[in-house]
């Protein structure tokens, strides 16, 4: 079509295509809906920043009463920190051990059949749908208070998270080495251990480290419901208004998280 054949319109300007107008209207409607949803969220949560300003005195009072930290209780705090670390470590490790085979069954490109795929996806879904704190409460009723139910609760919920992440990671992998070994007559298990897992190992370990980091923080909350560790100590000191002990515990928790983050960075570098 030559330029002369194009319809002349309003001083040579081309009319805006109808599709652009429709797209614009769609975007405007989308933005309006988003604003409405945010407004209802502000209303429901009674979000009033002015109250923070009004209540800043209370925060200052807590901080004042929490300083200086009471270091006489450092040793029990360190013991609780070790317990918190161990709960997160064991919970994550158990989840990893279960999630690797589950992830292989739940990935469309490695699952042996539809039934295994649906069963593994369902199991992952159930583990993920129930929060770790609820799992921990369930296990408290079974095995009593302490770090053990916390470990189990974290582990089961983490299976739901890691299982899904592992499966998605496996689905995104380069299937070339897998096809080569399959054509060569290798069995399903051999293909999984010699082509799939070596191919995705850095990603799986990265995801596991991230989950460990998340679990470490979650362990604090689990302590509030009887899961032991720093969480239980923090909960107790809050109830007894022992703010100087609370500061010590918070400092120990901060150091623990920083150490774990440092270790995670080192490990990620090594497994590349």
């Amino acid at each position, binding site marked *: 079509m030559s330029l002369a054949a194009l319809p002349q319109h309003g001083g040579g300007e081309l009319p805006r295509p109808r599709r652009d107008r429709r797209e614009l209207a769609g975007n405007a409607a989308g933005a309006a809906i988003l604003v409405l949803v945010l407004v209802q969220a502000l209303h429901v949560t009674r979000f009033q920043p002015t109250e923070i300003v009004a209540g800043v005195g209370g925060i200052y009072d807590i901080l004042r009463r929490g300083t200086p930290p009471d270091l006489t209780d450092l040793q029990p705090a360190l013991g609780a920190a070790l317990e918190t670390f161990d709960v997160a470590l064991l919970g994550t490790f158990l989840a990893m051990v279960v999630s690797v085979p589950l992830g292989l069954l739940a990935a469309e490109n490695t699952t042996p059949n539809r039934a295994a795929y649906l069963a593994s996806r369902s199991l992952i879904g159930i583990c993920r749908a129930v929060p770790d704190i609820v799992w921990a409460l369930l296990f408290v009723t079974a095995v009593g208070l302490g770090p053990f139910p916390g470990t189990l609760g974290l582990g089961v919920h983490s299976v739901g998270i890691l299982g899904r992440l592992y499966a998605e990671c496996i689905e995104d992998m380069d299937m070339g080495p897998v096809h080569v070994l*399959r*054509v*060569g*007559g*290798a069995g399903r298990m*051999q293909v999984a*251990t010699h082509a799939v897992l*070596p191919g995705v190992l850095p990603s799986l370990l990265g995801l596991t480290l991230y989950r460990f980091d998340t679990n470490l923080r979650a362990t604090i909350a689990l302590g509030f419901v009887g899961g032991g560790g720093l969480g239980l100590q923090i909960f107790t000191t809050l109830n007894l208004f022992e703010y100087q002990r609370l500061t010590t515990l918070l400092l120990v928790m901060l150091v623990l998280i920083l150490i774990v983050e440092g270790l995670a960075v080192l490990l990620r570098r090594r497994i590349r």
Partner: protein
Amino acid sequence: MAIAPAVHRPAPRGGAEAGRPLLEVRGLTKRFDGGRVVLDGVDLVARRGEVTAILGPNGSGKSTLLRCTVRLVEPSAGTVWIDGEELTALSDRRLQEARRAIAMVFQSAHLVRRRTALANAASGALGSLGGLAVACGRLPREALELGHRNLVRVGVEHVARQRAETLSGGQAQRVAIARALSQRPRVLLADEPVASLDPDATEEVMVLLRSLAADEGMAVVCVLHQPELARWHADRIVGLRAGRIVVDAPATEVDDAALTRLYRGHASSG
């Protein structure tokens, strides 16, 4: 299209066995969802000690033919025989065993990037290995020794301890061929094995495939995009166009007019 000068072809070994059909494809048809026919009744015979080159324009079904041959893609109709055993009639378990006779090399080397060249080369032997340790990811000593022998065979033993991700394209493709050899196959299928290589590496890989057919008595079937390479290195040329065989002749008998028909779909004026 210039015809290359005659090159020395190593004579196939194997005495009376030389020239025996190892791969026979009969009436192979592949129809994808929507009714698109990619292969339409393809017949192919690959013989012991010979290199068969498959040529054809893009989309003619060359790669699908190789994938259907090993049932990586299930054919819609037709039969595939490997050394007298009908592959297309086998259950999944029997297919896994029968596939050990066929190795495949792709355009990309498809190595496990984080493993060494040696581990990649040795992994070709997995089909004939069993046991818990192997299932858990370990490679036994005999597999590693076989892998090393095959790295020597393809001339890259000096990279044995290097991770696959550090290899050049030519080195990686040679390691892929070493992995295929560790399978001790009777048929080697190569899907555009030199498509991403420079001219020197291309020549080296083609000479290697040629010598594998001659020295090891394999039937090598190689999808190529360069007719010159096919005429230099193959014993037989099969031309595929729109899913049908339009050329099937000894490489020495395939002239420029036949290639023009293959790629342009009509006879040349010359």
